[in-house]
């Protein structure tokens, strides 16, 4: 695909097979250097002192707690942002309202803003002396440096993914299929489940994959908001960072490999599922 595209750009230039091979080797080499080599290095270091050492790196309540916290936060972020993301996409594509263009731009804000900055925004808002934080504090509810803060920060940084993936497919789909469903007697709800959702499913699945990957790997915003308290508000990425700065390299490498592995497996699952269903 890649090289045939190149040939189309310059139809007069006749590439020798050697030229083609060099191009392929160059591209693949670049990819290997940038992606495969670091992964290999990490894997090598994680298993350098044997599989037992690798496992020992994952031992300890701190690591277990950190991973569970990350997994639960991710699940929450995915569920909430899938529902809200689809609703937001429907609002943007199907409805006209005052300030829609502005709103459309603001949806992307979490992409544009540095996660650290995002974290500080929530400190200002929900900190003990913050605008809303004061009230929560008075009610005995801690948000910043506690679990709610982590969840809110993760929700914020993963907000645009589902919306951004669903908007174009929803737009392309148009209204015709849904209207046909109405004329055939299907309620709005049934139409959404039977017609809209299956039509936008690939955009949605891709959006969910991106949301998951980002939620698993979020560091900056969570670091600012959580305070990184061991066994309480330390997520997997914060745990890795902690171990690394404490010179516990084995623990840092092992945890990194597990976290990276989870993302990789999720990506493979999505691709596999997509392939299987596309053939149908």
């Amino acid at each position, binding site marked *: 695909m890649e090289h045939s595209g190149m040939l189309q750009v310059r139809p007069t230039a006749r590439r020798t097979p050697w030229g083609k091979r060099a191009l392929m080797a160059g591209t693949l080499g670049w990819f290997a250097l940038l992606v495969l080599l670091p992964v290999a290095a990490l894997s090598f270091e994680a298993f350098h002192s044997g599989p037992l050492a690798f496992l020992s790196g994952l031992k300890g309540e701190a690591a277990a707690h950190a991973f569970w916290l990350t997994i639960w936060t991710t699940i929450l972020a995915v569920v909430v942002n899938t529902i809200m993301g689809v609703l937001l996409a429907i609002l943007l594509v199907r409805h006209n309202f005052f300030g829609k263009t502005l709103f459309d731009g603001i949806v992307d804000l979490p992409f544009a803003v540095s996660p650290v900055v995002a974290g500080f925004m929530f400190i200002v808002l929900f900190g003990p002396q913050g605008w809303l934080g004061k009230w929560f504090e008075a009610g005995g509810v801690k948000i910043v440096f506690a679990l709610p803060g982590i969840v809110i920060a993760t929700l914020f940084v993963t907000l645009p993914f589902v919306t951004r993936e669903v908007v174009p497919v929803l737009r392309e789909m148009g209204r*015709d299929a849904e209207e*046909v469903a109405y004329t055939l007697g299907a309620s709005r709800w049934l139409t959404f489940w039977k017609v809209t959702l299956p039509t936008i499913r690939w955009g949605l699945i891709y959006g969910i994959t991106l949301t998951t990957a980002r939620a698993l790997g979020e560091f900056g915003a969570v670091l600012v908001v959580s305070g990184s308290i061991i066994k309480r508000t330390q997520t997997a990425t914060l745990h890795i960072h902690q171990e690394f700065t404490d010179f516990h390299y084995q623990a840092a490498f092992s945890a990194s490999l597990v976290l990276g592995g989870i993302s990789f497996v999720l990506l493979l699952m999505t691709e596999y599922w997509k392939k299987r269903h596309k053939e149908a």
Partner: protein
Amino acid sequence: MGIAVQNLTKRFGDFIAVDHVSFEVEQGKLVALLGPSGSGKSTILRIIAGLEEPDEGAVFLTGTDATTWPTQKRNVGFVFQHYALFKHMTVRKNIAFGLEVQKRPRDEIRARVEELLTLVKLDGYGERYPSQLSGGQRQRVALARALAPKPRVLLLDEPFGALDAKVRQNLAAWLRDLHHQVQVTSIFVTHDQEEAIEISDRIVVLNRGRVEQIGKPEEIYDRPMTKFVASFIGHANVIEATVQGGRVLAGDPGLGRVELPIAADNLESGEAVVLVRPEDIVLAATMQNHDLRGVIVGIRYRGDVYEITLEMSGISLRVSEDKDRFNSEGWKLGQQATLTFSRYKFFRAEEGHDALRERLRNLGYIE
């Protein structure tokens, strides 16, 4: 009565899409809503389906006022120009959709789907996905899906608009036959007058949200009641003329005005417009002094007819000659020919030539 709309009006902001439209469709008939884009025909169809709410007026389905019914309760079959098939479902699932929504027994659904696959000549295509079908096949699936729950009425919005000419003709003829078979009250929207004339029982001609004329295809074609209908149905030549002392004169005074062969004995003097269809102009090579004559400036072959462009005192006329006649006369570019009108339509141009011409140009009927 199958469908009736009364005084239907729909505005989009300042734009009046549908302007007090009323018409009826007899039970079991096939009616065409014919008009240029922006004439409000699709909006009327959507109002009948309940997909759009009218600002004024009422919709009656089989005699019952259905104006306030939701789309789901109206039991209408709707076919869109771009098929609107459910892409993730097989042909069979698409057709079964309406029946499954109604929770009909499984056996009944299976039997009905088979029946419809046969009806639309897609036996053996049940397990295919829409992406594996041609445009014509997709539109037949859309039709089968609309017909499956035995709708009260069938509504088709430019059903052949996305198909190429040949497929379109076959499918139009096929729809005509199919309608004879199923006899469901149907309205179809089109901007193609040939399509409307070919397959409908009656035609409602629309322009700028208003009904211009309602009638049988022959009536519309032979006896157009307004200038719009005359010029829209069959691309008439628009000739500006002046009535002077019982003579109808046209053309550029600088090139010498010509007298049109029109009986104008009892016409008042003033501005007028004459509309002549290309096939109603008869060309002959015989030159007699009193005859109207022009010079052939263009010849184009259009399948079964030749389209000849004739110039006469600065007026450009389109003439169509069938192939046999064309060959026996052997017309050449630059040749002179006399012409007579076998049929024409005469209008007074109260609004003035420029205004009338401008209006026809805006609507896209003249260049």
